[in-house]
């Protein structure tokens, strides 16, 4: 019988392992993050403890196995023993793992109980996922907004150089104060998403129709990045999360600024000032490419069988009332969202004008803020 476990093979193996050492060195920076909260530190140490336990077991079990492979081989002329069982051994190697598991379960239980206690929070934020953006609503302040990917599509399609935070940057980050217990309430407007910020050791699913609860307390100001972790359709990979943690004074200033900006935007919307066609088309294109193009495509052609085309469609070229209604209220039973609560009145006017005049739709229709306001459902 030929020997396949020759010394030469072992040399090859040794060489391969040495080659992979630089990779392993890089891997040390590729461990789980320790994060910036006391919970995330606990989670990190749980991870390391269970990892070392596994390593120790591996050394013992694989060590014995490789010892047998090296020594107890026919090529060495050994005679096989014929023993085939031992109740003592079976009991031993059932009992030892049970003991190890109990040791492991105790700290895991402790950390888990702490993680799941969201009581006595200082600030509550409602986090709503939808295809493919996050919405943050501060329940203690009059602030709410959407947070969208801000990486330009040129970078994604390799026609521009990729920035440092490629795919991990947004137009408006979530802003939190340091040292406060923040309670997040998670839900979704459409499919299941999952809000994940590794530095806080938070990953919680956002389920449509249900509300989940999780909390954090961050002591270190900084910018923390994550992304959606549950497959949520086409642009699941393009739904980042950026959290900016500020000192309380800066946070209060930010809150004030946001509240004022919101009030001003509402006043502007009330004015219902008419816009020129150029302005409507420019704002419309910008809004369309950020909000509508993920499904209907920049070309307006949609994805056959998945998302309908707007180019040449009946709604976008003929039936204006239906066009207004679809954009404002969405389409039940489909992925078409109700943009009436996502966009300002002038943005809706602009985007409808754009859709009716771009890609050769050329209806010449101009839709103004007042037309949209008239079509909006009465406020309750």
């Amino acid at each position, binding site marked *: 019988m030929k020997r396949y476990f020759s010394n030469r093979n072992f040399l090859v193996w040794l060489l391969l392992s040495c080659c992979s050492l630089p990779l392993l060195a890089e891997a040390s920076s590729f461990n*789980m993050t320790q994060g910036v909260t006391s919970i995330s530190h606990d*989670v990190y140490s749980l991870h390391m403890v269970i990892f070392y336990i*596994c390593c120790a077991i591996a050394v013992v079990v694989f060590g014995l196995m490789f010892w047998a492979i090296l020594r107890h081989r026919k090529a060495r002329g050994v005679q096989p023993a014929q023993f085939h069982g031992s109740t003592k051994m079976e009991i031993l190697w059932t009992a030892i793992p049970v003991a190890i*598991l109990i040791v492991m379960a105790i700290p895991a239980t402790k950390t*888990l109980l702490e*993680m799941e206690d969201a009581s006595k929070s200082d600030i509550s934020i409602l986090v709503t996922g939808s295809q493919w953006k996050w919405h943050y609503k501060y329940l203690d302040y009059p602030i709410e907004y959407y947070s969208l990917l801000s990486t330009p599509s040129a970078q994604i399609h390799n026609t521009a150089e990729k920035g440092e935070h490629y795919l991990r940057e947004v137009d408006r980050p979530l802003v939190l104060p340091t040292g406060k217990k923040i309670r997040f309430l998670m839900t979704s407007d459409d499919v299941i998403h999952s809000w994940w910020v590794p530095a806080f050791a938070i990953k919680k*699913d956002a389920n449509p129709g249900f509300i989940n609860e999780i909390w954090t307390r961050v002591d270190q100001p900084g910018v923390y990045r994550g992304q959606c972790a549950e497959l949520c359709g086409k642009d*699941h990979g393009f739904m980042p999360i950026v959290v900016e943690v500020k000192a309380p004074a800066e946070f209060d200033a930010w809150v004030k600024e946001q509240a004022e900006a919101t009030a001003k935007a509402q006043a502007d919307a009330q004015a219902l000032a008419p816009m020129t066609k150029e302005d409507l088309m420019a704002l419309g294109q910008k809004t369309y490419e950020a909000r509508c193009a993920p499904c209907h495509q920049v070309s307006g052609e949609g994805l056959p069988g*998945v998302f309908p085309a707007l180019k040449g469609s009946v709604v976008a070229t003929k039936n204006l009332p239906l066009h207004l209604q679809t954009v404002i209220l969405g389409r039940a039973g489909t992925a078409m969202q109700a943009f009436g609560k996502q966009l300002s009145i002038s943005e809706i006017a602009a985007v409808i004008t754009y859709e009716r005049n771009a890609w050769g739709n050329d209806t010449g229709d101009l839709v103004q803020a007042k037309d949209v306001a008239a079509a909006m459902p009465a406020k309750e």
Partner: protein
Amino acid sequence: MSTNEHSATAHTDHDHAHHDHKPGGGITRWLYTTNHKDIGTLYLLFSLLMFFIGGIFAMVIRAELFQPGLQLVQPQFFNQMTTLHGLIMVFGAVMPAFVGLANWLVPMMIGAPDMALPRMNNWSFWILPFSFTILLSTLFMDGGAPAAGWTFYAPLSTKYSGDSTAFFVFAVHLLGISSIMGAMNVIVTIFNLRAPGMTWMKLPLFVWTWLITAFLLIAVMPVLAGTVTMVLTDKYFGTSFFDAAGGGDPIMFQHIFWFFGHPEVYIMILPAFGIVSSIVPTFARKPLFGYESMVWATSSIAFLSFIVWMHHMFTTGMPVTAELFFMYSTMLIAVPTGVKVFNWVATMWRGAMTFETPMMFALAFIVLFTIGGFSGLMLAIVPADFQYQDTYFVVAHFHYVLVTGAVFSIVAAVYYWLPKWTGVMYDERLGQLHFWCSLVSVNMLFFPMHFVGLAGMPRRIPDYALQFANFNAFISIGGFLFGLSQLIFLAVIFKAIRRKGVKATDQVWEGAEGLEWTIPSPAPYHTFETPPHVK
């Protein structure tokens, strides 16, 4: 009993006059066959084809992920690739391969002339090509194939999916029918057709593990059928099982799916345990250590598989008591699994080992499956799972247990029994080359996935942040090499089927024991027409 024997003999005589010994040639032999060896061959070849189709999808995924940015495919198609890759590998490659092995081996191992229900056997195979044709045809539809992942969570798979959903549901129904019939056949065969003297505690472990697997299949395939039916009615008939707006619950989908899904995981690994338990004693020239504890460990794993499903759902927002229960029950699985690994090592201990290709794959199985077990244990720790969930760490985990676990065991089994099937020894040099190429490339492919996962890369994304770029390029190269290595396997099989090689003896392997090694190589078309007596 004597009348039965008499009628069986009469039946055989009758058959001799028509088409026995070797059936007619051409396509009709394979279409109409009720012979367990023919059907086993069909299953195995079908599984090989699916392994390569699913592999091509994986290559598309790895090619797109080779660099950051979108290069080859668009996100929607990328999602179709991940979905089909999973479905094809689970239902098309791994499960049919095990059923093929059961068909070939169970009757020969228990001294039965054939499977107990041969016509149903034919049917359960021939459903499969139709089912997968339906599933794969969706690639050519408007909107393409299903894209909600092989787990097809609602409402992504209901309200937000394309019309491929209907095709997908029908394909899964067919698969389920096929699997249930295959499982019934295995159970009936093992209960009724054991040779005299083949008592329960003398059954080869492959037979035991398959018997337990068959019960799991019958228990959970109807659950899967229920899930897809609810998806179908939610999408097309206005029900709201998984829609909160109509009083349903999207999380209920996950409960039902994983109540099927977790036992399904063990359906794909228990027969692998049986294979390794057959191969290791042969090449260690020493009886299996702890046979009885192996049977009990397998049964315990099967039982536990029904009470751990929620560990797939720790981030869905469940009561803390449920999190604790499912953490403990999941950790518990490490105990019987550990017993198995310890028994294999004890079997090798003070044996006289040789290292032919089947043994090499079995040894790699033990080490690499155990690594997959370790990451499984880590995933059970709920607070840590919040960081691991839905990242490449999970992808690494289940590919270690499914590729270096289930697939390696299937490859080991093919090398081990191929001489019995074809009558010639496979090409050992090519076999060793296949092994070493696979071993190196599979670890290049899956080991770094642990690191990218821990560093924060979610699974199922077509594009990623720049810090993951180097690792992904390395992983992709490993993936391409692993794909190429499997062409060697194809060459080995092709040579053996064309009977190129040294003639195999009846026993084939020096240390092999069991009824299948007492019959000639290649195994005649009909074996054990008179049952052997097992001492």
